[in-house]
């Protein structure tokens, strides 16, 4: 009898628990993938960028609002922590490598980075890593509007030229890079690690002195990451600041209407109101005649 009651109780419990188990299946968390990138910005600052993605409904989608921690080295130790951030609407988080990481940075010609994401309600914790060889990209100019760029990488303790790396050479324009000429990329040569590109964009608008910013960049190189180097040169067309703000136009502010309009309007108003005033004087005249 007691055995039957226990079985009945177990059946009731099973019935009660099965939907909960199914519900638990429904809210199962998604795994997250973290893609870490390194950037050397003009050989002055370095930053790391991570993009968080997850496969949802069969498609990889960028994931915003994921808290991430960046580490230098291969261990997620507190001492290696570079900083914390949260992914933005594009699923990206950026952190500048701080000066406090200098001692760790100087230890080796190669450098490892680690990024770890904290678990959220919808996503599991995740991590991504990156190993780079330290490299510099230098930009310069020579006579005849020629742009030279050179890549050197740290080998043991010395900087050595690197061959066969694709470099984009161009001019910074409207938030992007406009190639210096028809050639899209230049592979560095083995002897100097350099490239030479002729600047053929003569009519590029510059600032008031004609200054433009030329740039050489290496994009997503497996070994060296993203490198860029910029230089300001007076090769652009001088731009003259023009504004209609204080000019007399139909769309200008008060007191700045075109002269022809003012003449026309005031003449008409003056003419018509002169007639009205003249007629008011006529009433006065009639009045005077009446009292004579």
């Amino acid at each position: 009898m007691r055995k039957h009651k226990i079985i009945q109780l177990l059946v009731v419990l099973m019935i009660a628990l099965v939907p909960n188990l199914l519900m638990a299946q429904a809210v199962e968390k998604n795994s997250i993938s973290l893609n870490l990138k390194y950037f050397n910005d003009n050989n002055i600052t370095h930053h790391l960028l991570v993009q968080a993605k997850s496969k949802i409904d069969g498609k990889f989608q960028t994931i915003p609002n994921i808290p991430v921690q960046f580490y230098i080295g291969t261990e997620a130790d507190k001492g290696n922590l570079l900083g914390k951030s949260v992914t933005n609407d594009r699923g990206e988080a950026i952190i500048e490598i701080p000066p406090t990481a200098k001692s760790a940075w100087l230890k080796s010609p190669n450098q490892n980075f680690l990024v770890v994401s904290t678990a959220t309600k919808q996503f599991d914790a995740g991590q991504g890593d990156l190993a780079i060889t330290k490299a510099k990209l230098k930009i310069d100019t020579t006579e005849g509007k020629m742009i030279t760029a050179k890549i050197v990488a740290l080998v043991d303790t010395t900087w050595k030229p690197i061959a066969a790396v694709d470099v984009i050479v161009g001019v910074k324009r409207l938030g992007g890079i406009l190639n210096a000429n028809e050639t899209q990329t230049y592979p560095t040569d083995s002897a100097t690690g350099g490239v030479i590109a002729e600047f053929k964009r003569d009519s590029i608008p510059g600032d008031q002195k004609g200054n433009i910013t030329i740039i050489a960049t290496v994009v997503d190189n497996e070994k060296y990451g993203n490198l860029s180097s910029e230089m300001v040169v007076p090769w652009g067309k001088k731009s003259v600041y023009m504004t209609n703000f204080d000019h007399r136009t139909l769309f200008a502010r008060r007191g700045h209407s075109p002269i022809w309009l003012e003449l026309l309007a005031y003449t008409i108003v003056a003419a018509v109101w002169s007639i009205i005033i003249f007629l008011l004087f006529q009433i006065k005249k009639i009045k005077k005649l009446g009292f004579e």
Partner: protein
Amino acid sequence: MEKLAENKIVQDLLPQKFGKQGQIWVVCLLAICAVGFYAYCRQLYYGLEVTALRDYASWGIYISNFVFFVAISLVGSLITAVLRLTDVHWSTPLTRIAEIIAVSAISFAGLIIIVDMGRPDRFYNLFTHGRLQSPIIWDVIVITTYLFISLLLLYFPLLPDLKIMIAFKEKNGKSLQKLYEFLGSFWKNKPEQFKITDKAINILSITIIPVAFAIHTVTSWLFATTYRPGWDSTNFGAYFISGAFLVGAGGVLIAMYVFRTHYKLEKYITDDHFDKMGKVVVLLALVYLYFNINEFLVPAFKMKKSEEEHLMGLFTGEFSPIFWFAISASMLIPILILVFKKGRKPKWAFFAGILVVVGSWFKRFLIVTPTLLHPFLPMHDVPKNYTTYIPTWEEWAIAGGSLAGALLVITFFARIFPIIPIHETIIETDSHEKA
């Protein structure tokens, strides 16, 4: 016109006290004005939130009413100036009716703009910060000018009549007598005075025509200088002026009938006047119809994407009942009535006049609102009431109050002053007899 003795003319045309009907009429108008005033107080207290005006339909029936008032005011220049300068004498009994319609309408056109502003305390900003390049400033200037010219055109021909009225001291009562003396005690019927008055009226008649054309052309430019479907037209000035003359003439037909019936003026406002005025209305309705065909057929033939929604809304969409009513009532039916001699009899002409005026009011509504509700960029993420415009009771009350106010001005004017020029009628009768 029959031969009428001078005294008989004076007795017939002197202003009369309100009868029972007149009193009821005045009380009704005052009641409508009072409701409108209460609604305006609510608008002042709560702001324009009490209206249905929102981001898209920011001009509603207030501006429709404004355009209507400006339009109907043009009749002053048509009857007084155009017909006077072209030596058309049959319109003499109608000149004062036309002028007082013009004065009252243009006064309320100015007032309704202040109502539309929501914050009347900011009205002075229009002068301190106004730009000469803006058609709104031109409108302010030209409305003020037109009001002054219309007042002068009302006043000069009134001077000889004031002398006649001053003679009836006992009939007038103390306050009216004081008013008449203040306005015209200096008039002694001297030939020099007549000479100056005639000259002044001629100058005014010439001046008022371009000013009247300017007032409504500028009003049309408030719309046409804006690149919007339905407003982007080079024809708008002429389209507005032709419509304005039509509604003004319609208004005169109504006023003629009301004054003739109420004050028993059959000898002065004759069937012949209705016949001639009816013909004028037919002509003006045909001209306005021509401009309407231009305004709608040409864009409809091209049917540009931006115009399509607006035009289809008028032809077959949400505004089609009002659109076809306005076209029929303001033009088609009055033409069909007035084109026949029987239709130009007083009663039918009065009916046609009502159709013209009511249809024209809705026509102004259609000029203002549908365009605003069809912007170039689609309406996204806005509350549902932003996408339509159904005026609130406060708006109707204020608009109704302003219309009642304009009628009240005309009513009181007819109570105080002779609505048909006495002196001019005597002169014309004399010259008729001599001829």
